[in-house]
């Protein structure tokens, strides 16, 4: 069976690498991107099974990306886990209103992220 695809987007290179490492060691195919504009292009092209998305990013923030993903026919079914340092309740509401399926805050536990990835994809 072909490995499921996870697209990870974060503008902080070390965080991007750590999330990518977690997904990769679980046997998934991982694509990474460091900005919101690129992640949309990749999402339409690759149609991943899961997107792990940061919110505070230059050029295009994660909530905008999420709204655009959820309003396009080909990408609206992709499960989106928001992974952000914004921890206020209003930030979480905004992401859910933008269509996020799940909201995790930084600092995050790779153990917990791993179990969430499996819960969504297995």
């Amino acid at each position, binding site marked *: 069976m072909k490995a499921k695809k996870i697209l990870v987007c974060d503008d902080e290179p070390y*965080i991007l690498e750590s999330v990518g490492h977690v997904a990769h060691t679980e046997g998934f195919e991982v694509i990474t991107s460091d900005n919101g504009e690129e992640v949309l292009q990749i999402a339409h092209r690759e149609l991943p099974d899961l997107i792990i998305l940061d919110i505070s990013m230059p050029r295009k923030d994660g909530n905008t990306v999420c709204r655009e993903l959820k309003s396009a026919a080909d990408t609206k079914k992709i499960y989106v886990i928001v992974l952000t340092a914004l921890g206020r309740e209003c930030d979480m509401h905004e992401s859910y209103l933008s269509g996020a399926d799940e909201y995790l805050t930084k600092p995050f536990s790779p153990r917990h992220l791993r179990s969430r990835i499996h819960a969504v994809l297995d």
Partner: protein
Amino acid sequence: MGKVANQIAGGNLSDRVLQCGGLSDELGELVCNFNRMASRLEANRDEMNVLHSRLEDKVRERTSALEIANRKLRESDRQKSEFLATISHELRTPLTSITAYAEILVDSGSIEPEKRARFLSIINTEAARMSRLITDLLSLERIENGMARWQASAFDLREVVKAAAAVLGPALAEKRMHLSFTMLEAQPVLADADRIQEVLTNLLGNALKFCRPNGHIGIALQHVSASGPRNASGDYVRIEVIDDGPGIPPEDRDQIFEKFYQGANTRGRHSGVGLGLAISREIILHHKGEIWLELPQTGGTVFCFTLPRHSTAIEFQSKVLEESYTPA
């Protein structure tokens, strides 16, 4: 008189009883006193009106002062929450890497040695970034609140330039950067040498960070007669840190000296927390100098700052110092 009394009772205090000539009897006296009473009443009322309107003016004045103060408080409150949100985000970012990689290392017994070494070095780097953020924040906070201790001494600015360049020597060498100085004459200043060196280290560090390997950084010192953009006249030393890097995009230029501003497209790509230039500005302003940005047509970036030149003669060795320096 009855009619006038009625008018006065009704509030019209300007009516008077006409004296029918030569009334010297009791009635005449009564009319006279009645009119005097009416005049007194009128004068009192007028005075009261004046006081009343003055009081209203004062109340209006105070109210608007309070409104302004209130607005300022609300604004400073808003700034404070924004600041806290930014700090918490800036602290969380390195903390996220530290905790994530630590947990990954704890959980993975059989990780490749190169990966293990890389993750450990990331933890190290990000811990240093957090620590620098806290140091810079405290330093900026102390300067802004006037709590910083300054130690002024008279020195030749060329010495501090050399010291700052020496601190960055290894990093410059690693990136094979070429550093050159144009410092023809002694530039005496009365300032806090450590803080001025901090400014120079920040500016040189930025140039180093954003330039391509094998790039060029120049430092030029010059005796000038104005403070910079504000154009205060006087004896100043102008210091330029020139690089041939990518320059600074127009959308970043106005905010580059603001706290935590890292440039719309540079965040995350370069280490740093966005406090270096804010601290540098505070240091230069404290010394009554100016700091600003110039972008030459030919590309690259020039950061300039000025410091008042120390007028009293100090014995400096006025040896000619124009040399190039390529770190080994």
